[in-house]
């Protein structure tokens, strides 16, 4: 049957995901709508208001947005889903959404930059004052997740952002803008998602990426089934595929850290490197994120 | 072909009355000129007939059909009237030929026929060969002629002209006058022709309506207007008649009275039933005045003499009554100049009918 997928994956990745899924399920035709997470949420808000949700499955950047939808009772629970091998906390306990990969946010800097920051704390050093960018949490789900995780963490808290502000950090619209800024040297230091920095580096951009030892924040790009779906069977097949070894390998090929550690590690990750994932309580973050965002907005604007 | 009845039409702009209770009745096929000083409401009347202005009171009927009235207002495009605008209103984006052929195009006339009629119309106004020019590249007179051709080409049943010859030189004007006369004779179209040139009006019209400040003052044949003006305004306006005060000495007999004017006793024409009395007004024409070489008549002081090709226009004031002004034409061989004193004798004239209002 027909399956409608709303996803915020980059265009090429989305295409490959669908292709691979259809290779396994040739009888399912997948319609894709791809856009930024917030555009997708806007679109769905309108669809809800009109009483005609269109999506069957969602594959969007972060769990917080999923929590929002879950709170509105829009997501279908899929208790039979095979979650073996998935990291704790990457999927919803009620089995309404499942993390498909780990997209971490760390520190990127221009290869020619005089200072090589290694830890989050390094970003507050006066040597790099006024040279730091980050994606605005108001436009990037990953950044919002980072914000709330840091704020909730006792060792960092708001103090960290106050320090950043004092050190002249600016928030820009989205990870793409951070990448450009850092790569061009316009602002040589930035907070950025891993794959973007590392893919650019692989192509030859003058950019370096570090996973700070304090831990990186990871969003999981979860997949979920809409409660309103009229093709539950195929939707479940899609979730199965994403969580399957084949699906996870695909994520790996695309340059992501798969949710299932067992399928391997991406080439860019140095052998034996440990990525410490910042502990995250999705429920708490979901509850706090609105307040955190608006506080951030007041501090940094945007 | 269509008759035109205008009944009690009033048109107000704000609280300014541009037309006041105008009534005119045109016979089918008649050529009527509307004559009057600038700003008297001629264009407004014409626009009301064409349907561009909604009238404030009265009715306008074309061929017995009510076009404008208290409750109805037919739009201009369904009145089938032709019109030549005072400011030409040529379409700048169309060539001369396209301007002229427009009505035919609208009327879905076949191309060959259309081109023939356009060619004819352009020939008529002496613009052959200008087909492809744009209005902006024409001289003022040429534009006027294009506007003319544009109106004539559609052969409408009622044609309205708003000073169509104002910008043409005398010769073209004479030629166009002949054209209009022929056009009228040929087609029998009812024509309303607005002008401030009385010679033009007289040459062309069956009847002339003289307007002043929104009112129709007199509606009569050209000869009547000239010979028997209804009041001082008409007398003055038509052929620049001299209006002088006079005393009528006898009651009218056979259309004539004796009267005293400038101290001379003369026989004048008058309307039937003209009573004797002082305070009458008389209209004199240039040919009612002769220069008397024998010393008879009234002495006048010439204050201005303007050469006008073969003759001069003289302005003079009676020596005894310097507040009166006489303007008349004199043959050139007299060579009168400002400052001269000459004696004038009145040999005819028309007693203006008493104003019913006073």
């Amino acid at each position, binding site marked *: 049957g027909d399956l409608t997928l709303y996803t915020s994956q980059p265009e090429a990745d989305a295409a490959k995901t669908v292709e691979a899924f259809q290779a396994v399920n040739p009888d399912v035709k997948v319609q894709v709508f791809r856009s930024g997470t917030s555009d997708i949420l806007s679109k769905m*808000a309108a669809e809800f208001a009109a009483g005609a949700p269109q999506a069957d499955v969602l594959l969007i950047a972060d769990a917080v947005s999923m929590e929002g939808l879950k709170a509105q009772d829009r997501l279908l629970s899929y208790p039979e889903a095979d979650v073996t091998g998935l990291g704790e906390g990457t999927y919803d306990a009620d089995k309404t959404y499942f993390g498909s990969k780990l997209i971490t946010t760390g520190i990127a800097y221009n290869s020619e930059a005089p200072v090589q920051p290694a830890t989050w704390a390094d970003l507050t050093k006066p040597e790099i004052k006024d040279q730091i960018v980050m994606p605005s949490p108001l436009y990037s789900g990953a950044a919002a997740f980072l914000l709330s995780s840091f704020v909730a963490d006792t060792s960092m808290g708001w103090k960290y952002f106050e320090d950043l502000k004092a050190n002249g950090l600016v928030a820009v619209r989205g990870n793409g803008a951070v990448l450009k800024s850092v790569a061009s040297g316009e602002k040589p230091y930035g907070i950025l998602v891993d794959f973007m920095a590392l893919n650019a580096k692989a192509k030859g951009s003058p950019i370096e990426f570090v996973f700070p030892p304090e831990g990186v924040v990871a969003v999981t790009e979860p997949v979920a089934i809409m409660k309103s779906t009229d093709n539950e069977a195929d939707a479940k097949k899609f979730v199965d595929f994403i969580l399957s070894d084949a699906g996870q390998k695909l994520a790996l090929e695309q340059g992501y850290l798969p949710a299932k550690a067992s399928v391997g590690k991406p080439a860019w990750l140095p052998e034996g490197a440990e990525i410490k994932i910042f502990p995250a309580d999705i429920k708490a973050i979901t509850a706090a994120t609105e307040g955190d*965002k608006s506080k951030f907005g007041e501090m940094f604007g945007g | 072909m269509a008759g035109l009845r205008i009944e009690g039409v009033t048109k107000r702009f704000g609280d300014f009355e541009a037309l006041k209770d105008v009534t005119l009745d045109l016979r089918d096929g008649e050529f009527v000129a509307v004559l009057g000083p600038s700003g008297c409401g001629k264009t407004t009347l014409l626009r009301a007939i064409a349907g561009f202005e909604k009238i404030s009171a009265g009715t306008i009927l074309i061929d017995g059909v009510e076009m404008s009235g208290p409750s109805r207002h037919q739009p201009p495009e369904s009145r089938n009237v032709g019109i030549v605008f005072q400011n030409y209103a040529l379409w700048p984006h169309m060539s001369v030929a396209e301007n002229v052929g427009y009505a035919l195009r609208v009327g879905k006339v076949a191309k060959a026929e259309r081109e023939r009629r356009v060619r004819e119309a352009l020939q008529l106004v002496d613009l052959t060969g200008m087909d492809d020019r744009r209005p902006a590249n024409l001289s003022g007179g040429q534009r006027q002629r294009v506007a003319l051709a544009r109106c004539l080409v559609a052969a409408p049943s009622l044609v309205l002209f708003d000073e169509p010859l104002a910008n043409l030189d005398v010769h073209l004007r004479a030629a166009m006058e002949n054209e209009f006369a022929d056009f009228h004779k040929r087609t029998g179209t009812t024509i309303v022709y607005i002008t401030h040139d009385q010679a033009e009006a007289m040459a062309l019209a069956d009847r002339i309506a003289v307007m002043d400040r929104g009112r129709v003052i007199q509606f009569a044949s050209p000869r009547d207007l000239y010979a028997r003006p209804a009041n001082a305004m008409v007398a003055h306006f038509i052929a620049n008649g001299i209006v002088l005060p006079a005393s009528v000495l006898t009651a009218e007999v056979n259309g004539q009275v004796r009267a005293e004017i400038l101290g001379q006793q003369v026989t004048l024409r008058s309307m039937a039933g003209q009573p004797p009395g002082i305070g009458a007004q008389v209209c004199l024409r240039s040919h009612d005045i002769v220069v008397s070489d024998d010393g008879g008549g009234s002495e006048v002081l010439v204050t201005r003499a303007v050469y006008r090709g073969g003759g001069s226009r003289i302005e003079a004031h009676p020596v005894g009554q310097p507040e009166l002004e006489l303007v008349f034409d004199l043959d050139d061989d007299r060579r009168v100049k400002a400052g001269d004193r000459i004696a004038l004798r009145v040999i005819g004239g028309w007693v203006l009918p008493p104003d019913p209002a006073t």
Partner: protein
Amino acid sequence: MTAAARDHRNSDRALIIAVAAIVFLLSILPMGRLLWEVIAPQNGSAAASLSRTLSAGSTWTATLNSLQIGIMGTALAMVLGTAVALTVGLTDVRGRHIFVFLYVLPLLIAPQVTALAWLQLFGPASPLLKMLGLAPPLGSRNPLYSQSGIVLLLGVQYGPLVFLMIRAALRKLPRELIEAAQSAGVSRWTVLRTIILPLITPALIGAAALSFVSCVGNFGIPAFLGIPANYLVLPTLIYQKLAGAGPAVLTEVTILSILISVIALAGIVLQDMFSRRRDYRITATSLPPDPFGLGRWRPLVEAALAVLIVLVLVLPLTGLTLSSMVTAYGRKITLSELTLANYAFVLTEHAAAPRAFRNSFGLSFVAAALAVLIAVPMGYMMAWQRNRWTKILNFSVELPYALPGVVLAIAALLLFLKPIPLLGIQIYNTIWIILFAYCARFLVLALRPTIVGYHQLDRGLEEAAQVAGAGLLMRLRTIIFPLVAPATLAGGCLIFLTALSELTVSALLWSSGSETIGVIIFSFEQGGDSSYAAAVSVLTVLTTIALMLGTNLLARHLPNGVLPWRD
């Protein structure tokens, strides 16, 4: 009444009804549907949303900021656009055609691209400044990230819009009106001040109103430059609300949208008041004025124009071209490494990109053509048959343009998610919903210049056609359209160019198969593939240039002055 007369009447009435219906469909319906969300929200209570929104400090900060950048951005766009239009339209500078051509092209380049080009050229990493030793220290705060930066970019972005409208008006000036003043011994500046500018007042007011609405409704520029500067305006505030996507989000968004509408409407009301006070109809049929000789100032003025073109077009375009020819963003550019591989990728390997080109060019062209077709009769009603209804129509046409694209897109979604009642046609998930949204959004860009055109037109020209027996439709087609065409088609060009690079509306409405150029560029950018995005942008600009040059070949068959870049 004759049969022909009855025909006329009927066709006139049909036309009026059709126009009203179109406005209803394009403007009132989607806006009304949106408003319905306030009146009868799906979630939560309207009153709660209202009080929450209106009591939030950010709402009023954003409103105030919107007003500010609206006014200042308009002022700058007016100064730029008018100065350029006057220079090009009234003086003897050389290369006018080329200049006009080049000056309207920046409409195609996303303002972010322009800003980035400037940031790079005048920022710490600037090769030029580094060479001169003038480069600011690394990381120093860029002055473009500020209110002034936003205003500057708005001015640059909407200058061409003002330019096109003013230029259309200038073409209509009969030379005698200017000459009459010149022969009074008056200097050119005084002629400009006392005759020319007053005579083109309708265009000035119209252009100001339109650019005000554009500035207030713009999302891209304040999003790009405002966020780092901690500067919030209503469209960015709306976007943030949407990103939060709480249950009552639509209600709040609608409330904020109403605030924008109120600001935009204030602009129109002002315009209406101003343009009715005086009479600007030009009755004479005459040639346009002879150009003023600039004498020895000419090279200087030409140089100034050239600098302007470099700043608003060459610079960003060069930046784009270079980005599109390197393999990775930020990489030092050496000649040997320049490659066309990115072009090859988007043209051959990326299936959606060529489709997006076809879609966007098609959509833009059709939207522009439809808008032009609608604008002529609609302008006729609004300028010449004023009554209460036309005023409402006049206002409602403006709304879809004033609101951020995403809001209009939501309105379109709300309307068309379910098949159209009675007809049973489903336009959701097809290209037609994008076309609908484009028409609704951009109609005003053709309508405003058209109304300005009407205000300058002598009605006698229409009357002459009326007595020739032409019904309204015929008059519109043969007399009125050609006469207002320079103004209307200038609007059409605006629509075409603006729609080509449109993103915010189509981002929500596209579906596979109906991608637009904006969507493709945005996708590439989001995935970090700036080089592909740049390649698509460059291709868009090149295709447009080719198209515009193509129309030049047709110019001989078109009425004078309908192509803004041709005399």
